[in-house]
């Protein structure tokens, strides 16, 4: 009978095996979907590294492959930050490069001939498959429902909030860090549940890996102590917590100190002090618990409480003393600006200038998370139902991460995992109730036990079940609709918003066909092929990594913004008059200057739109020589047309952007298509630089810095003289018209 053979498959031990197999198949499918949805850019364009930071990571990985691990560890890079150089080996998170290096060598060992570029391009999608898996494990720890883990894995696999940082080619630290984040949290929950040293040590191991991979490890460093602290405050101290936390803290701190870039920060920096403080507090609480077990009598306990409070007070004031005297470094600026939201704008404009450090408007939340965003609070609410130790973790993580994501767009990435967990909890609670085939009968009603009286008011009555098939089908259909909509939304967002390499731009021609704008690579390859190997290129810091990676030429500043003064120097050179800029260029051995100009094409991310940040950063160092006010007209407008301020018109950036641009148009009709304004008739006059190369769509413009004049004149005189000669010759043809002009 078919019925009984199906029963064999679905019931008993073979039923369990069937479900296990199904689960494995589903997880593999989810992982495959996660990888596949990240391949848009490879299919549309090519297997190429995206954006800015990935180009540095790619270059570092190539260095690692070519020179081996130890020279990578000691790498001093003299081709960036000219003339300072950068101790690259000691100032990066090596986890990403080492990971792809290991994968590369394993593939080579298996005699699979693979290019390192393809390993780097496909690393992020590969790891996102693993993240979905880690998500499954994490969510399974939170819920007894069999569907919650699978739902969470599926959400995590395709939600745009995570895809935004992990499409193919986006070879950045976050590519592996989110997997490590989720997996570390899974191990931590496991450790707290079991109170086992093994799980605690594993947590520390993955925490160490995380530290080596991403600066966001500080999130874990503070979240786990906070979890423990809240547990203690709730009176939930137990030996399980003690064992797992002390194991994690001791091993994890030792592990994190092995990374040269982190070094002694875990014991010297305020960002890490909460972990140390909770470690001390835990010892005190453990001691108090121990004594309490042996000493009866209320007086002793009171004494004990007083002692604990006193010790905590002394330790706290000691901490304050140490930070005041400077033994412990204060909060790092980036971290501090999360709490005091106006801090960065005043004190560290370079942080405030980055677009991903801006606060998040609500559409961005919905864009990145779709319907998960409203399932999220419901899921958090459900955590209060049982409120075990792991649920406390979910609640803390949710509140904290929502705050961070609200302050900085970039931190949406840390919010996404917990949103997926909570949303999956909420949705699985619905599905588990509405997808049961059998309806409740009076017997089952009697059987339903009353729940924990401490629980939420809404869940005090026993669960009965859903009676009618009609209500089941209504809810099931609408949920299915929402899920389908979610998939469509994710695919649409990924394909439209997150799959552009930004090195290669795409636009549509009137007939609908795709038009590839490849100006960046055109210009970088021009540099590579037409300039000497050590020609120094000056550009705004955004393009430093790309020049290093694609053109392989030394740069003055790059996206590793470690030296604000050096960046301000470049900002000053760009925003000053030529007479001021030229000595700066000479002093820094600059051979070529690169500017990005979008006026012809309407490409809005160009240098003139970023120009005010250059001015601001330069003003931070030379407030007397560069003034932001000078670049605004009397009415406070930022203009580039005829009414632009003299400071604007004479700045090097303005001149380089519009040099010869007017010649493209009929006289007097030059248009800037980004700023939508008409330009002055006359093209600005450049004296100390000469145009070396301009890409097809004028996006990248390269200027060669002139050498000193052979006759010892200054450049403006020399240019005027050259021009004068030409004019004379032209006038000769027409014959003498004017003999002398007064």
């Amino acid at each position, binding site marked *: 009978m078919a019925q009984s053979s199906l029963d064999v498959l679905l019931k008993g031990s073979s039923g369990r095996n069937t479900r296990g197999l199904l689960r494995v198949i589903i997880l593999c499918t989810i992982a495959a979907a996660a990888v596949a949805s990240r391949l848009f850019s490879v299919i549309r364009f090519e297997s190429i590294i995206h954006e800015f930071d990935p180009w540095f990571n790619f270059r570092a990985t190539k260095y690692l492959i070519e020179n081996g691990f130890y020279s990578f560890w000691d790498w001093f890079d003299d081709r960036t930050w000219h003339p300072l150089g950068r101790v690259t080996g000691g100032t990066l998170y090596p986890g990403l490069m080492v990971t792809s290096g290991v994968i590369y060598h394993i593939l080579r060992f298996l005699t699979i001939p693979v290019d390192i570029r393809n390993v780097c391009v496909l690393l992020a999608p590969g790891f996102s498959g693993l993240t979905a898996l880690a998500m499954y494990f994490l969510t399974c720890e939170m819920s007894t429902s069999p569907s919650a883990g699978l739902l969470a894995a599926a959400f995590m696999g395709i939600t745009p909030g995570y895809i935004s940082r992990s499409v193919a080619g986006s070879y950045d630290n976050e590519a592996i860090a989110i997997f490590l984040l989720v997996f570390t949290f899974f191990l931590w929950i496991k450790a707290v549940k079991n109170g086992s040293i093994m799980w605690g040590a594993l947590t520390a191991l993955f925490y160490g890996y995380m530290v080596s991979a991403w600066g966001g490890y500080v999130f874990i460093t503070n979240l786990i102590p906070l979890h423990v602290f809240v547990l203690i405050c709730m009176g939930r101290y137990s030996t399980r917590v003690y064992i797992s936390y002390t194991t994690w803290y001791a091993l994890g701190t030792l592990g994190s100190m092995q990374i040269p870039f982190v070094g002694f920060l875990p014991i010297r920096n305020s960002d890490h002090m909460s972990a140390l403080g909770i470690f001390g507090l835990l010892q005190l609480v453990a001691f108090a618990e121990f004594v309490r077990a042996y000493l009866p009598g209320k007086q002793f306990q009171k004494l004990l409480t007083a002692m604990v409070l006193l010790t905590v007070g002394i330790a706290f004031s000691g901490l304050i003393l140490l930070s005041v005297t400077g033994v412990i470094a204060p909060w790092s600026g980036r971290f501090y600006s999360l709490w005091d939201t106006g801090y960065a704008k005043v004190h560290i404009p370079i942080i405030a200038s980055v677009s991903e450090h801006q606060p998040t408007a609500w559409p961005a939340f*919905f864009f990145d998370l779709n319907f998960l965003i409203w399932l*999220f609070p*419901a899921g958090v609410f459900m955590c209060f139902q049982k409120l075990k130790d792991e649920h406390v973790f979910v609640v803390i993580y949710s509140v904290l991460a929502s705050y961070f994501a609200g302050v900085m767009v970039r931190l949406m990435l840390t919010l996404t995992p917990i949103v997926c967990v909570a949303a999956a909890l909420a949705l699985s609670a619905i599905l588990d109730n509405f997808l049961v085939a059998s309806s409740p009968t009076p017997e089952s009603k009697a059987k339903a036990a009353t729940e924990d009286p401490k629980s939420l008011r809404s869940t005090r009555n026993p669960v009965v079940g*859903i009676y009618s098939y009609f209500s089941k089908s209504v809810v099931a259909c609408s949920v299915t609709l929402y899920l389908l909509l979610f998939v469509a939304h994710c695919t649409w967002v990924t394909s439209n918003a997150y799959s552009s390499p930004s090195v290669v731009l795409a636009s549509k021609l009137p007939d609908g066909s795709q038009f590839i704008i490849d100006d960046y690579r055109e210009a970088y390859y021009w540099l590579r092929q037409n300039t000497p190997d050590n020609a120094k290129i000056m550009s705004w810091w955004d393009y430093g990594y790309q020049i290093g990676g694609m053109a392989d030429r030394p740069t003055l500043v790059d996206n590793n913004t470690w030296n604000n003064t050096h960046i301000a120097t470049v900002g000053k050179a760009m925003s000053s008059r030529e007479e001021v800029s030229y000595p700066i260029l000479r002093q820094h051995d600059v051979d070529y200057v690169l500017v990005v100009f979008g006026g012809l094409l309407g490409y809005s991310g160009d240098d003139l739109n970023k120009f005010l940040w250059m001015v601001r950063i330069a003003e931070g160092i030379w*407030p007397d020589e560069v003034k932001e006010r000078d670049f605004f007209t009397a009415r406070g407008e930022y203009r580039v047309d005829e009414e632009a301020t003299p400071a604007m018109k004479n700045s090097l950036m303005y001149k380089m952007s519009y040099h010869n641009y007017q010649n493209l148009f009929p006289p007097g009709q030059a248009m800037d298509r980004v700023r939508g304004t008409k330009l002055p008739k006359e093209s600005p006059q450049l004296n100390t630089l000469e145009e070396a190369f301009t890409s097809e769509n004028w996006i990248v413009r390269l200027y060669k810095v002139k050498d000193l004049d052979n006759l010892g004149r200054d450049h403006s005189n020399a240019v005027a003289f050259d021009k004068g000669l030409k004019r004379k010759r032209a006038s000769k043809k027409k014959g003498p018209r004017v003999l002398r002009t007064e």
Partner: protein
Amino acid sequence: MKPWTALFLLLSVVSGVLSAQSTPDKFARYQSLSRSGPVDLDSASYEELTSEPRDYFAVVILTATDARFGCLLCRDFEPEWDLIARSWNKGTKPDDLKVVYGTLDFDNGKAVFQKLMLQTAPVLLVFPPTIGPFAKVEGDPLRFDFTGPISADQIYSWIERQLPDGPKPPLVRPINYMRIVTTITILMASVTVTAVLYPYVLPIVQNRNLWAAISLIAILLFTSGQMFNHIRKVPYVAGDGRGGISYFAGGFQNQFGMETQIVAAIYAVLSFATIALALKVPRMEDVKGQQLAVLIWAAVLFGTYSFLLSVFKAKNGGYPFYLPPF
């Protein structure tokens, strides 16, 4: 022509002689007038203070603090300006470095505002000395335009840069003893209250419903862009140009204060419907009632989500998805 020149020469000689005598007095007089804060000027004293020759720096702020003018910046900056003048006058400084701080309010100095053709306030002017060791060739005042809220420290460092090199008194913010005392009192009071009310407060603090409510409200606020409002100081609502109110800002990167509240409410309704479907409905024992509840909540969920999608579509023009009703 000639007589005029002679007259002019004569005048200038006379005034030079006069001023050579009067300048030290002028400085001493204003110095004594000022006591600790800035000198309050009117049109006449402003002209006198800034008239040439002078052997001191005159730092004058032209402001409009009266509520009629609605100059928020002026009023915000007033205590900061006091602080600067006070710090300078009380601090130790080189003997030959003479600086007078003055305030000219629009009410007292309309003529000066007209003469300088000032459209905005406040404006800070620094008049360098025309005689003495720090005299500058061109006696034109240096001008600082206020573009936004600014702290005393930033202004003070700007003023310092206009003065000659050398030691200058630091900017001293007086310690707010009142605030410290208040904080300590409040702290102690709250400790006492907690200790006394402990048995009554404990069940509230341990109440799970309360914590659930707090967490949910926090999450809803943060995910609906409240921090963006706080940081960017967005307007609460704006007009739509036709006399009505526009609740939703155009564009993906903009939002209004009220808009975020609407969105938070939408999220709250959706979440609550989800909670009701997942937790409450399965606990209902009445068959008919349960059926009705399921239908109502499912309809609420569907309708609200549809509305949310339509709002999002309005914000993001190219968004292709929607649900039927809206």
